């Protein structure tokens, strides 16, 4: 049904455009819903988003929220409800137990389970620092990326392990993010590149910028683009990496760097990344949501919101060539992107002013022969029953 609706949309667009050119193009999200304080969020500055079946957990600058996708209703928790600290910067869900783990910005680590918050911090646990940027569930372990190292908490044994420059190759200990891949844990470190922890062997491997210089990237594809890394997101057998100095992809043997000058990246300042596959990853830039949708052809889609009104654009690019520009009556909520989560065909975009829900009706990976959307996608992106 969803696919049929998408085909209808394409046909409508083709009619609007006249004899539109057909080309191999990526899927473009044209239906965006905005979730903001007007809908019940405690705050519009969204730091974290995590999809969890019918629920979407939302970490804001002033509380935790949960969106029920089925009803569109939002429930929220603040300090008065037991949330240990109001600024929620990271969320992960333990699929085995259903527990929701929260990284709190200056408040440590919290577990939301059975309607109750449990709290771990510097003074009552092995959490190395209360400023938590990232959290990830790995089997029975909870990893927390903090501003002074990483901590690992085994929920079965209660054992804490701290990783700093003493026992991990952290030239600097300023951890920024943590993610779990196949048999590996990846930590993004400000000043120490990306660290890979092999779960079976307990061994670390570091990935640093080979030129070792802050002010240049000597060669684009010689390694990680910069040591100030904001996130590493494994997908399939590759790792996507974001930094404030561009992005890159590592397949275990080859690195490929991306900059605004040679790709569809809206900007080189990237707060986060979420890999969807070896071919697709979303990058949270300060000037829009940029997704590489086909690695082999370097095809990108960047979503932005217009400065006035709710409209926005999706620009499809190959290298720096614009293939298609789709204007939408409702774009992403804001151009300053902070975080993502992928939920089946849908994508959730955490921004500086609300959460965006990209409804992926008829989503397809990679490229597909389809007409170019050269006209405004009016009507096509009007949502029914959504927040907007």
């Amino acid at each position: 049904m969803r696919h049929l609706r998408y085909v209808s949309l394409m046909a409508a667009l083709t009619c609007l455009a006249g004899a539109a050119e057909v080309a191999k193009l990526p899927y473009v999200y044209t239906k965006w819903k905005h979730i903001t304080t007007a809908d019940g969020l405690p705050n519009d500055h969204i730091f974290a988003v995590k999809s969890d079946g019918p629920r979407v957990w939302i970490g804001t600058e002033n509380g935790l929220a949960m969106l029920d996708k089925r009803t569109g209703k939002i429930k929220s928790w603040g300090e008065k409800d037991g949330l240990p600290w109001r600024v929620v910067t990271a969320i992960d869900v333990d699929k085995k137990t259903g527990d929701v783990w929260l990284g709190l910005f200056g408040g440590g680590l919290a577990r939301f389970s059975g309607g109750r918050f449990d709290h771990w911090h510097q003074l009552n646990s092995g959490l190395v620092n209360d400023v938590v940027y990232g959290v990830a569930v790995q089997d029975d372990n909870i990893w927390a990326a903090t501003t002074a190292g990483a901590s690992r908490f085994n929920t079965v044994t209660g054992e804490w392990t701290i990783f700093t420059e003493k026992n991990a190759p952290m030239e600097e200990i300023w951890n920024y993010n943590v993610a779990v891949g196949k048999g590996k844990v990846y930590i993004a470190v400000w000043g120490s590149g990306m660290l890979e922890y092999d779960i079976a062997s307990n061994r670390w491997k570091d990935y640093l910028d080979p030129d070792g210089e802050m002010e240049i990237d000597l060669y684009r594809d010689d390694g990680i683009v910069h040591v100030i890394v904001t996130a590493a997101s494994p997908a399939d057998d590759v790792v996507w990496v974001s930094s404030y100095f561009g992005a890159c992809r590592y397949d275990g043997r080859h690195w490929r760097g991306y900059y605004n000058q040679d790709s569809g990246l809206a900007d080189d300042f990237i707060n986060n990344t979420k890999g969807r596959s070896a071919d697709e990853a979303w990058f949270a830039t300060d000037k829009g949501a940029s997704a590489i949708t086909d690695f082999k052809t370097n095809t990108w889609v960047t979503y932005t919101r217009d400065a006035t009104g709710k409209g926005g654009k999706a620009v499809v690019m190959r290298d720096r060539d614009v293939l298609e520009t789709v204007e939408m009556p409702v774009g992403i909520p804001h151009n300053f992107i902070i975080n993502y989560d992928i939920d089946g065909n849908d994508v959730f975009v955490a921004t500086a002013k609300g959460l965006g829900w990209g409804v992926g009706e008829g989503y397809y990976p990679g490229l597909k022969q389809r007409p170019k959307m050269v006209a405004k996608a009016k009507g096509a992106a009007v949502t029914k029953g959504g927040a907007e």
Partner: protein
Amino acid sequence: MPPELKALIDDDTAEVLRRINGLSPYQVPDLRLKQDSNYAHTPSDYEPFGAIKPYKEHFLKQMEYTGAGRAIPEPGPELKTVKIGFIGPIMSTVSVATGGKSHEETLGIQMLEGAKLAIEEWNARGGYFRRHIPFELDTRNDNGLWGASGNEIINMAYKNDDWAIIGTIDGANSHIAIRVALKAEIVMLNSGDTDPTFIETNIPWVMRCIGDDRQMGYLLMDYVLRKMNYKRVGIIRASNRYGRFGVRELNDSGRRMQHPTIIEMAYKVGSEDFSLQLERMKASNLDAVIHWGDAAESARILNQMRKMGMKQPFFASDRSVSREFTNVAGANAEGVICGFPWNPQRKDAKLAAFNAAFRKRFNSDAGTYAAHAYDGMNMLIWAIQVAGLNRAKIRDVLAYRTKPWPGVTGDIPLSAALDDLGDVYLAKYEGGAWRYYSREDLKIPRGYIPARDRVNRATGAIDPMKPEDRN
């Protein structure tokens, strides 16, 4: 608008205000971003991988803030004071980050006094002009333990509702602080951390009002290599972040000039005996010795060098320009040369007034850290006065300033990376006193500073004698 406020706003600032006021959360001001043609006035022969055109060169274009902060409304009339955060090492502690027992309190207290004096002067003039309420310093100790500076920035940004923050000195803690400031969206102005990498982070909320170790290192190495023609240079440094990062530009510059550092020795902060390091340095037949660390160790190293018969000229970082150094070094201090971020002997009415006010208030002479904190706090208060109580706009008026800040430490021109690119100096101890020399005073040659960024030059390696290379 009160007349005292109007007097603070020049035409350029008025234009910035016109463009940042009244924006919706989705709008970004239409303001020209600073664009530098060269990073940090780096001469071509000091550039990394100088023979190769890099794929990408950073820090040449000013970072934008594109978030929603400019639309946040100002607080209501219940606000009683305008708080500005201060974080610096003002209490003794033991810290992993700073390499053991703390050692920067003398610098941190100076910094606090400079900041205090600025606040008190503005309060005497009427405080925050728009509401006639005082400024308040939210003072926090940077103890460096377990990244405590991060927690303190959280307190300042989220619990105490500070409008901007000044600090700190230690490089590691400064980095921790700015990462928090980026997420919390609050200006972090640094007046005491000379670590070059502090600003090399692409954070639009971070700025610095003191010349860094890159600038001072370039001048020092120009003097050592280009003027004095020393070829065998040895380095001794503190085994902490200050030492490690401070000597990076020295090592890089020497290597790129075909005179790599002969030996680099590190010592634990607080050491008394440096014989292990100095014996090896003595055996290295050096032309000159450079020290990067605190004043006390610097003096002890110098004394031990002389006692061992090492007669090499002794160079050091700015922290040695202190009474502590000369008291311990005694006669050995004669002839020592240090990089220095400003000229405290400059003839300037502002500086004279500051020195007099500082002496009157604290009954002591203002040092480097006091003077720069005074300048930094004045910059922040000026920004708050003209921009109003909105963190993003406070950032904007500083980031988009078109003219250098006229500080007591000299003009402070901010680069595209919002770093202080003002003149730095060499301090020489002569006849029982420190004297300060500019590059011009000592006729120190400098390398060719290209007028074009590296990516867009005709060639990788530049021969300054070839006109085609200079384009």
